[in-house]
């Protein structure tokens, strides 16, 4: 089954070492000294990516708790890309806002460690541990700007509700353990398969508790209340990071738990998730239309995208699982790009996140406006961008499983979402620049990251076969 008991944790170890190095480097930093701490993170994440490639197809397993199967590795790779892009956008923002670089990178890398662990954990306790590692780091990152009341409010809300949901999750684990005598997913699966014929209320309660915990992390309606505030209050780079990374990690664990351990109870959780997916898509888009702050708008859009991802889970077929992986990757590239542009255009005193801030961007920064347009069109799912292929893939899964209703509602809400993405485009191209506001210059590294994301979006939109096959292969070996 496993070829080496330590192989499976190598990606995690790479990132952890980078985080520790960042911590140490910060303590040796003289006051006011500029240190390329972000570079340490790049090295760690780069090695983690290489480790993913080397581990591919080997189903490495460590301590009977970590399974570096292809599914986990695909998500790990996605998370590494999220981390790399975030670091690329971070340097400029940290210098501008005077954020503590050492703490920032350390927390960022620790939270990525937690995310990776969450993606590959095959034991409920490990998943909980990973959830806490990533959550605590992200709570702190959200409130990193101590001078900003909005940041503190967002962080506090996120923390309280997050702690609450963690308690739910833990209670769910406890009940599951009571029932099955194990926290290992495979053993729970075997037990559930044996007892799945006669479902007891206890089983349903355990299931429900776990569901609430996951739904909170992926900000599904009605557990989404923290999302807009936390997203708006956090430094914009962090918002981009948590909207993509946390979501990817939580979805990976969600899929793993519900499609392996609790697969036998599918008839019981499918209607619930069906309903959650429906309201998540509808609420995310409809409320998104009313937003005039871009960060809040993207927060609601990220809720809606969570709904599309849930479709893949409800469909629960091969296509559905693979579509979640593909969609997470696409969504990460796209959303990070959009948040990255907002972050890079902000100044220290003024966030560049109101809709009217984008007025006439095309006239002063045509290239940035063009890149932003690509990100927004991809979020809206318009061909030939990756967002279209992602949505098409998810809806194929829904139709395949006979959920025409989910596909229709999903497509209709994505048309509505196009309306609010286009509002930004209207501002950038069709409104005259309001006042001569100084827009900061953009460094070469962040610009390169944006261009690479755009190229990737077109690549995945026009020639998706290779990555689609990878995603399909990732789910073929497990479950």
């Amino acid at each position, binding site marked *: 089954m496993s070829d080496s008991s330590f192989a499976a944790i190598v990606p995690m170890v790479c990132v952890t070492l980078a985080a520790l190095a960042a911590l140490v480097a910060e303590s040796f930093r003289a006051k006011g000294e500029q240190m390329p701490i972000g570079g340490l993170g790049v090295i760690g994440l780069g090695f983690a990516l290489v480790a993913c490639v080397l581990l591919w197809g080997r189903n490495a397993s460590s301590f009977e708790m970590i399974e570096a199967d292809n599914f986990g590795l695909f998500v790990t790779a996605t998370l590494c890309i999220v981390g790399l892009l975030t670091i690329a956008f971070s340097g400029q923002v940290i210098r501008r806002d005077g954020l503590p670089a050492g703490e920032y990178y350390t927390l960022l890398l620790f939270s990525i460690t937690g995310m990776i662990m969450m993606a590959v954990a095959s034991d409920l306790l490990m998943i909980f541990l990973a959830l806490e590692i990533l959550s605590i780091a992200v709570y702190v990152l959200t409130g990193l700007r101590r001078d900003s009341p909005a940041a503190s409010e967002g962080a506090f809300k996120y923390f309280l509700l997050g702690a609450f949901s963690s308690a739910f999750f833990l209670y769910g684990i406890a009940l599951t353990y009571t029932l099955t005598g194990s926290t290992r997913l495979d053993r729970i699966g075997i037990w559930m398969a044996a007892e799945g014929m006669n479902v007891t209320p206890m089983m349903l309660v355990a299931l429900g508790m776990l569901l609430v915990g996951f739904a909170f992390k992926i900000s599904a309606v009605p557990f989404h209340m923290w999302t807009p505030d936390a997203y708006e209050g956090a430094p914009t780079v962090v918002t981009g990071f948590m909207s993509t990374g946390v979501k990817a990690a939580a979805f990976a664990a969600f899929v793993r738990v519900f499609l392996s351990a609790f697969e036998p109870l599918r008839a019981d959780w499918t209607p619930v998730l069906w309903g959650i997916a429906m309201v998540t898509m509808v609420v995310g888009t409809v409320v998104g239309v009313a937003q005039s702050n871009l960060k809040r708008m993207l927060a609601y859009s990220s809720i809606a995208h969570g709904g599309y991802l849930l479709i893949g889970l409800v469909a629960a077929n091969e296509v559905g699982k693979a579509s979640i992986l593909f969609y997470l990757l696409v969504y990460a590239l796209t959303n990070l790009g959009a948040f990255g542009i907002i972050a890079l255009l902000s100044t220290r005193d003024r966030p560049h996140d109101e809709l009217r801030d984008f007025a006439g961007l095309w006239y002063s920064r045509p290239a940035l406006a063009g890149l932003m347009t690509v990100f927004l069109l991809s979020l809206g799912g318009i061909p030939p961008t990756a967002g279209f292929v992602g949505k098409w893939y998810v809806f194929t899964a829904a139709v395949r499983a006979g959920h025409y209703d989910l596909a*229709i509602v999903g*497509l209709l809400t994505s048309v509505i979402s196009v309306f609010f993405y*286009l509002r930004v485009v209207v501002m950038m191209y069709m409104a005259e620049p309001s006042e001569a506001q100084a827009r900061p210059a953009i460094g070469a590294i962040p610009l390169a990251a944006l261009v690479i994301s755009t190229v990737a979006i077109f690549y995945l939109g026009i020639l998706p076969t290779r990555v689609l096959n990878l995603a399909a292969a990732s789910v073929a070996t497990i479950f």
Partner: protein
Amino acid sequence: MTAYLLTLLIAVPLAGALLVLLLPGRDEQGAPLIRQIGFGISLVVFALTLVLWWGFDGASADFQFVERAAWIPAFGIEYHLGVDGISLWLVVLTGFLTPISLLSSWESVEKKTKEFTFFILALEAFMIGVFVALDLFLFYVFWDAMLIPMYFLIGVWGYERRIYAAVKFILYTMAGSVLMLVAILGLAFLHQQATGAYSFDYARLLALEISPGWQYWGFLAFALAFAIKVPLFPFHTWLPDAHVEAPTAGSVILAGVLLKMGTYGFIRFAFPLFPEAAVYFAPFIAALAVIGIIYGALVAMVQPDMKKLVAYSSVSHLGFVVLGICALNANGMQGAVYQMVAHGVSTGGLFLLVGMLSDRRHTRLIAEYGGLKGVMPQLTAAFLIITLASIGLPSLNGFIGEFLVLLGAFIWDWKFAAFAATGVILSAVYMLWMVQRVFYGDVTNEHNRALPDLTPREWVVIGPVLAMAIVMGVFPNIFLAPAAPAVDRVVQRVEQAQSVNVQRRPPSDASEPAVLVQSHSAPRTPHSAIRMAR
């Protein structure tokens, strides 16, 4: 070269668009060069469409210049292109109108020339893609992708209410196509159930046995998307806004090519894929088309704005096209295919001429003009010819299509033909009335006294359109003959479904299909009909 001709037709404008985007120079510096390059590329594309016509075998109903390559094999998605008699002329029309619309904006588009040229060329690539795609996934990609350049053309270079019009245009069209995407996915899934493999391929999906219940829903999903695009009567409200607010080049392409995608979709996809449902729904759609013919004409009559008048006349004229398709016989469908091209030429011409007037006076209100005949005789002459073409004067392009459509409708059900024929009269009323108020009488507005007549550049723009209108009217067989085999094949396919339906019906109802079978057994009817009409 001919092996990759269709790919070239898509790739050349796309590459040209990227080239234009990467050229240095913003706004006024470098603008002439960008204009010339863009125009040159569009001419190359037009030449390629002529090569396509030259190499096209008009006697065959099969798809030609077929290109096929796996694209996303896991889902049976292919890069599959081909052209037949139905799409041939639409491709040529696209190639014909794009350079004209670029040239028409030579002076009127002053800002952001580079991006303007980029979007027009990208639009051309996607439009051609829509007409030649034979894989439904590929078709949908082009169908949706095309909205974006049009959105920018209206939104950035349009008139006062351009943003509203642009957003309305894109939301309407997208909302319509959403259900079509679900139906496409459903078809692929049906194919997977039947054969074990997904496929979005047009020919394979045609071979699929689809249950009547599925057919009805699938047909409605496709028909909604196409009806919005055409636009058919209750779905038309986006069109006047988009037409009026779009810049001249946008209006020309919108009226000339984009609307045809809806009718093309009916002929290519909705009717053949779901023939039984098509037979069932044809009378309803025809009724909407006839309502659109009369409603569009009546509303056009009272418009104070010339561009809006022409926009509503499009609703009316496209009603004829849809009626011809719904007649489900060779005459009607031939007429529809012909009328699609003819309307593209004549309405494109009208928008060009109205654009020239409004470039001079910056108003499109009929009341602001009057007596222009003495001031600008050349423009008046051109306008009159296009007007006559539009209202269907014999020997100009509008006549043949409308005549065939009415003939087909009459064979099917004389009541539709009778009501639709009033549209012909009404179109003469509103068009000639507008011409009278704008060009005849005394010069009522002093501003109009010194307006310059057509410039040489404008002659180059409108000349080909005039020539085309006359050629199409005098030699209709050039255009009808290559389309005939493909049209017959579609009609045959739907008729088979009709005969299935007839067998299910009580025998007393058998008189109607007898006529249809007769018209089908004489596939040369359109030509004899024209001879008769002369």
